[in-house]
């Protein structure tokens, strides 16, 4: 495909869309699908063909609209009225609104903080484009960043632009993306790889899944730009097998991009070749760790190895490898289109741009949100999230999954960025945000995460394999009211040991949920131990523990 052809395709698609008139966008991401979104789409399509509306109209399957709790969602165009909890039976009523007043019964207000307070860069196309049609993506400036990169920029220019943007890795650790690209670009080798980490294993996180299901071409475009910048021609996307819909849409997207010559050999008439292959995980949390992920791509058990050497020097099959997360790649096309300086103007001094969060737990509006860095937790939870349901009281918010921590109310007004989260003992992580109310027991939450780490430990290094088991045993005893103060002391000692001596991130960060809950909710631990009581009334205290 030549630049002119890409331009023509965009124009053609825009014209077709204009002629088609109003669109009824039906969310076809996993959340709405599991509450019947596909049936709604079917019924609307059928209703449209059997009784044509007055005006031209069509039904379109789109990606995530964000408010997953209220699914299935349907929106008229990309800025018309939105309808929630739509059922197939509602289709004829909905079709009538096309030539009349909006349907009050199902209306989902979009002038609320949930929609108004967000800033969408990564999610700009989510809920608007049909993820299974490359033309729709092209019509919204899709692949123009790749075009610009290949025709008007040198690899060094691209890396400079990414460095200027201040983008940091969205997988959790927040390593500067430009620096990583530069290291891989400088590495000397006949073969280099690009890997997209889509092994979103943190429980309570669904950002990457939503991006892949809603706008897969954006990730492919970001990867191709990265490949050109670092000098790689082969790439892998390592995606969780638990995300069948994301896998399917990626397969379709890759095939479509190859067919149009946007991936494959001699992309856009240049000498640049870039091939992307999908690799499925098989249910191992540790494979989100980059060295374990590479072992898994090679068809081996997903166990990590010591670093250095870092993947940038010696990665897949010993070759220099660039590994970035889904959201990181998804940020690349807009950065190239609008310039690094534009991106750097959003966010805080050390954390630029926006971040996508998966908001869930005891919160009124659960779903997918994108906000500028530096926003406060209070704004996210009480404005965008709509606060705590059922008149309950906020207790803590957990960020960063099993590697993160629980943040209590006193820090809700702190600006959200990589560094302030680290300061209060949590991490940004990949973007899972679980809100807990007064009915959650913080010791039980710590036990829950330790159970997770214990089961997911790959067993290669002893501190993690044995340490997580022992910490879990102690936490179970505490929740059952069977522990002594000496047990608590031992738990703290183990936290320190496992953190400092484990081989990879899984072990090193596994004590975080315990450490952070001990820091802010020590009284809850003490109540279980001293008074043999669970203040939240969540834990079952063993009878023999009664005082």
């Amino acid at each position: 495909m030549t630049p002119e052809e890409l331009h023509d395709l965009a124009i053609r698609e825009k014209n077709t869309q204009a002629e088609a008139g109003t669109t009824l966008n039906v969310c076809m991401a996993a959340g709405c699908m599991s509450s019947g979104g596909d049936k709604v789409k079917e019924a609307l399509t059928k209703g449209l063909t059997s009784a044509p509306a007055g005006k031209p109209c069509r039904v379109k399957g789109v990606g995530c609209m964000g408010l997953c709790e209220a699914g299935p969602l349907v929106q008229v165009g990309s800025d018309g009225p939105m309808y929630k909890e739509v059922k197939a039976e509602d289709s004829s009523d909905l079709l009538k609104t096309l030539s009349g007043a909006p349907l009050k019964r199902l209306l989902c207000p979009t002038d609320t903080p949930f929609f108004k307070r967000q800033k969408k860069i990564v999610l700009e196309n989510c809920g608007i484009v049909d993820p299974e049609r490359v033309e729709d993506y092209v019509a919204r400036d899709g692949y123009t960043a790749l075009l610009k990169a290949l025709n008007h920029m040198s690899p060094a220019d691209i890396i400079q632009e990414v460095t200027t943007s201040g983008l940091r890795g969205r997988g959790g650790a927040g390593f500067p993306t430009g620096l990583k690209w530069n290291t891989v670009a400088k590495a000397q080798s006949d073969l280099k790889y690009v890997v997209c980490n889509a092994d979103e294993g943190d429980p309570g996180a669904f950002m990457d899944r939503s991006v892949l299901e809603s706008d897969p071409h954006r990730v492919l475009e970001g990867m191709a730009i990265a490949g050109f910048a670092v000098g790689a021609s082969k790439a892998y996307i390592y995606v969780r097998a638990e995300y069948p819909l994301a896998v399917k849409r990626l397969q379709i997207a890759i095939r479509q991009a190859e067919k149009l010559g946007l991936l494959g050999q001699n992309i856009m008439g240049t000498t640049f070749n870039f091939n992307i292959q999908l690799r499925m995980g098989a249910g191992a949390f540790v494979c989100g760790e980059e060295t374990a992920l590479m072992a898994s791509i090679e068809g081996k058990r997903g166990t990590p190895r010591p670093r250095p050497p870092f993947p940038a020097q010696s990665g897949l099959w010993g070759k220099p490898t660039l590994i970035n997360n889904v959201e990181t790649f998804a940020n690349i096309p807009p950065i190239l289109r609008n310039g690094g300086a534009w991106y750097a103007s959003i966010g805080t001094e050390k954390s630029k741009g926006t971040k996508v969060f998966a908001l869930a737990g005891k919160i009124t509006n659960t779903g997918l949100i994108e906000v500028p860095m530096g926003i406060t937790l209070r704004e996210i939870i009480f404005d965008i999230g709509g606060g705590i349901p059922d008149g309950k009281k906020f207790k803590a918010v957990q960020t960063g999954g099993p590697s993160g921590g629980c943040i209590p109310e006193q820090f809700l007004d702190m600006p959200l960025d990589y560094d302030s989260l680290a300061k209060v003992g949590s991490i940004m992580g990949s973007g899972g945000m679980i809100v807990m109310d007064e009915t959650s027991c913080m010791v039980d939450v710590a036990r829950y995460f330790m159970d997770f780490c214990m089961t997911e430990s790959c067993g290669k290094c002893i501190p993690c394999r044995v340490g997580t088991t022992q910490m879990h045993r102690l936490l179970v005893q505490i929740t059952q009211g069977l522990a002594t103060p000496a047990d608590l002391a031992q738990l703290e000692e183990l936290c320190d040991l496992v953190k400092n001596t484990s081989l990879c991130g899984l072990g090193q960060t596994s004590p975080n949920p315990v450490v952070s809950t001990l820091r802010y909710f020590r009284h809850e631990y003490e109540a279980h131990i001293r008074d043999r009581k669970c203040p939240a009334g969540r834990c079952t205290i063993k009878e023999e523990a009664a005082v």
Partner: protein
Amino acid sequence: MITASQKPTVPSTDTRWKLVEAAMRKNGGQADALIETLHAVQESFGYLDDVSLKFVAESLKVPFSRVYGVATFYHLFTMRPPGKHTCVVCLGTACYIRGAQAIIDRVSREMNVEPGETTKDGELSFLTARCLGSCGLAPAVVYDGAVAGKQTADNTLDRVKRRIQ
């Protein structure tokens, strides 16, 4: 000793082996296609066993020990035949906070099956998942592959019982 020229014989005339062979071809037929191939076996036959692992080992020219290691390392691979129906309760953080444990306890008690096991009559495999990513619908339960959101112990038990009858 297997040499490069020897092609391992397919374990049986079952046509499902063709799907497995196609998956190996599609992924290059090299050692790194191992996980994709095991996915294909499990999708076709429902589980992995010694016969299939041996065939995959010989086809991809990978030591049996490594195939067995991979098959047992990853949680999604199972070495036991699944029940006629499956019920998977999500134990992700959001589902846990919203009461997934109560669902598990209740179903486990009433159906007399431990999480991760299959009932003695082979009717139901009762499993847990790490996180389905359907956190907006917590607690989520998957019945025979279909995700359902906002479940309770009562309606989960009810739906499970209805499927079995």
